[in-house]
């Protein structure tokens, strides 16, 4: 499961990226999807990891310490194989 994590500012998102990467937890800094927020901003895309697992807990702690605001689950709808023009569609749901 992949999560989008939002922050109060792009500075906070950058700091969180540094903290998580520094701890060996892979994340990607991306623009906030427009379905979540229409103004410009950056967020983190991260694997949620196993709930309760060491890396999962560490990620949550670090995100909390960096001022993470909201978490959104990425829902991906696979393209229709019978239609060549069909493509993967992403939507987002508040998490947890």
């Amino acid at each position, binding site marked *: 499961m992949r999560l989008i994590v939002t922050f109060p500012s792009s500075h906070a998102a950058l700091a969180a990226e540094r903290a998580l990467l520094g701890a060996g937890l892979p994340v990607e800094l*991306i623009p906030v999807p427009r379905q979540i927020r229409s103004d410009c901003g*950056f967020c983190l895309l991260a694997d949620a990891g196993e709930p309760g697992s060491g890396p999962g807990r560490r990620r949550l702690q670090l995100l909390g310490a960096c001022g993470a605001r909201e978490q959104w689950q990425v829902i991906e709808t696979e393209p229709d194989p019978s239609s060549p023009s069909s493509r993967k569609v992403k939507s987002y749901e508040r998490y947890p």
Partner: protein
Amino acid sequence: MSDIRKTVDARGLACPQPVILTRKALAEGGFELLEVLVDDPSSRENVVRFAGFAHCGVEAETEDGGTFRILLRPDAGLPAAPEAARVAPAPETLEKAPGALSAQGATVFIASGGIGTGDEQLAALLMRGFLYTLTEAEGVPRRIILMNGGVRLAVEGSDSLVNLRRLAERGVEILACGTCLEFYQLREQLAVGRVSNLYEIAGLLLQGRTLSL
């Protein structure tokens, strides 16, 4: 028994029409060999490159009196059509949704590691974000040309490398200025795309739609 053939005659058509017609023919199927006729060397190059992305073998390439004949054999074991459709969506499938993001067919010219002037960290962040949004676009650009500080985006250690690689996987041609790589002593570190020169870059910038960052 000879193979069932289909012919796409794209002579006299400007880019990207030959690639679009090839893509359509591959999506339709119903043949074992696809013969594509073009009369322009860059169209020939584009069709051959596209064939690679669409998992087609190039059986033969011949030239006769200015006509290039390319013989393609789709690999039945691989999903040629969806891959081909992703690389070059048919024009009618574009911009379906209001505000749909599409850079279809454009050349994106990047001459710096960041977007705009001001804080360098913000400029770099904006460039990284922009390249990510291109990976999410319905229609990808035809090529990205990197010059001056822009070549730094495509070398090992760049945080935009992952997005440039994703774009290259979707068929976007990534060209890095050779003079610039040499100037910054980064030629050996180029990790995606290929080295180009000013003649090719100038020619490409002057043809078609170019977005300059």
